[in-house]
């Protein structure tokens, strides 16, 4: 029987050395691929294991007792919790910003460790925060708070509170979330005033309604006009959103006078309020 197998040849008649080279190439490529994407590959497998655990814990939830507290009790608990809101006071807002700036070395790694698994919003937050840091270098240093007496724990809590302020509820045209230009701070002050009057009866809540209103403010802080740019499709909802702007304007004796730097932007109607987003 004739055999084609000779030294240096495989079954297909190719030289064995060529085969070895190809094999080595493939192995190196695979190894390289693993090194480049090792974190993704590992996290994929780890997450896979965690998923299994999550399913287990989901099954455990089924056999717990009936809830002891009523829905109303839970709601009242929620209502009595101290709500950390965006400060209405401009100086307080600046203080928090300064805290973030001063504590940037402490803040970022610790927060990541606290959060553990990064979700989409956290990643966005991290992303936007990076931009803030870049901005800080350019900005003239503000006279911040004296942090020598603030404990690390307190500082961390404050920073976390600060992060809650920017939980992805704002979208600004030229700036990433977390950036606080004077114009943005000014809009936030308008927003805070409007928010006080932004109220809805229950027949208009829970319907996923949303509208956006453009606000034109003169250089003297006078409300020139409003313009509905995105309607919710529900006239009552839109009207109440509009009313809240006018009520905020009338009851507070007008809006704050915009600085010269951005007065033209305010009068051109570059301010858009989203109800609720």
């Amino acid at each position, binding site marked *: 029987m004739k055999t084609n197998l000779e030294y240096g040849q495989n079954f297909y008649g190719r030289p064995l050395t060529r085969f070895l080279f190809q094999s080595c190439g493939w192995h190196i490529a695979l190894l390289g691929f693993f090194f480049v994407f090792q974190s993704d590959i590992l996290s994929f497998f780890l997450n896979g294991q965690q998923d299994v655990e999550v399913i287990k814990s989901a099954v455990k939830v089924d056999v717990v007792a009936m809830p002891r507290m009523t829905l109303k009790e839970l709601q009242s608990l929620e209502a009595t919790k101290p709500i950390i809101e965006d400060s209405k006071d401009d100086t307080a807002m600046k203080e928090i910003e300064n805290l973030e700036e001063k504590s940037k070395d402490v803040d970022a790694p610790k927060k990541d460790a606290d959060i553990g698994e990064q979700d989409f919003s956290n990643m966005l937050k991290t992303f936007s925060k990076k931009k803030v840091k870049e901005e800080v270098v350019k900005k003239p240093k503000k006279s911040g708070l004296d942090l020598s007496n603030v404990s690390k724990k307190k500082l961390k809590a404050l920073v976390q509170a600060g992060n809650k302020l920017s939980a992805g509820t704002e*979208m600004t*045209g030229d700036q990433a979330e977390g950036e606080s230009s004077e114009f943005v701070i000014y809009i936030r002050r308008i927003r805070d005033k*409007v928010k006080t009057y932004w109220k809805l009866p229950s*027949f208009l809540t829970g319907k996923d309604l949303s509208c956006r209103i453009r606000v034109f403010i003169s250089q003297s802080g006078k409300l020139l006009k409003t313009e509905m740019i995105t309607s919710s499709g529900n006239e009552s909802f839109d009207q109440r959103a509009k009313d809240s702007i006018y009520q905020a304007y009338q009851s507070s004796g007008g809006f704050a006078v915009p600085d010269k730097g951005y007065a033209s932007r305010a009068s051109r109607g570059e301010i858009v*309020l989203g*109800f*609720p987003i």
Partner: protein
Amino acid sequence: MKNLLLCLLFLSIGNAFSQGGLTVVSVGEAESTAEKIAFPASFTSGNVSKNQKAMVNEIVKLFISDFSFYKKSFETDDGKSEGSFSSPKYSYWTSRSVKYLVQTHAKPSGPDLRVTVSLFDISKKESIFEISKIIKKSVVRKKGHELADALYKKITGADSIFKSHIVFISDQSGPKRNRYKELYIMDFDGKNKRQLTYHKATVLSPAFSQDGKRVLYSLIKFRKGRKNVNLRMLDITTGKDRIISSRRGINSGAVFMPGEKEILLTLSYEGNAEIYSLNLKTKRLRKVTKHFSDDVDPSISVDGTMMTFLSGRPGKAMIYTMDPRGREKDVKRISYVGKFNATPRFSPDGSEIVFASWVDNRFDLFRISSQGTGLVRLTKDFGSNEDPTFSNEGQFIAFNSLRVISKKKALQHIYIMDRDGGIIKDITPKFGNCLSPRWSK
């Protein structure tokens, strides 16, 4: 890789907002508030008699009572009229923070009364709706509820509970030591109670038809010394009452299927209780559940594609859902907790189930999504609460609550609460022990 993707996503969002050079700031979720709606005393013209004046006063009072059920949306305000019927004094109502004003006008129309109701939006300073009806004395409340419903619909764009009814069982009649449990009907607010059956026996688990004209109910009868639970159907408009099913054992817990040609009911003539579908015309019976455990108490979603029921499959009474168009089709266990559960009832849109569960030696009410998620407790420290039923528009739940007064005395009344457990009121005070409320669709 993830970061790259996020960068692209973020940049795409950023571009969308920088195109117009606008800065969008979120105001956030609105605070919940109840808006003021005022119902001042009525205006009259022509020769209005004392009785007719009383009629229109009753209508205004009824408006206030009806709207006060929607506490989360409206704060009712009464008082004297300011300005004229068609030109109210807006400044006065603005100073009282009133959002809506309902002005009523009455003038005689023969023996009857022509009532005109005008709804004003105070912030817009204009009338946004007007409706007129000729009302006879015998139907004052019915017509009043219809007017209130029209006002509510104009403001909210949704249906109200004002035209709905509730059937229930009460031991109001019979000798003191052996009270009969008969079927009654009332308006949603507990007024206008009427007795529907006179069996001098015990009536069980009623159910409204979709159009509210017929009621299915069971009756405990003793025949030849043997107790049997028969299913009957009563036509409320004609008073015609007939037996639907009288098989041996239980013929109970029946509900109408959409279209009202078929009903779902629990039968036990084969041994253990199973749920069947019965065609009212052909009398054809079809088994819907088939299990060695008891399956009882069906409730059907509005489109008829989902049924919730109580089953002893896990060893204790738990809530299940399934597709009633087949046999044992898509059976899914919904509740896993509670010593045992009872009376699961669908919300009108079929998205939620309210049920009673035995906790701390009494029943309390809970709400869960029809997918088995979002379990919340609705009642606590409020007696023993059973037999819930969603209102026609899903914003309220009626249920019976048992209060132990002494070792020998306990009172069972029907209450209404909002869907989050906020108690509105007792709607059957001084009407004996009342149970098994069922809200019309």
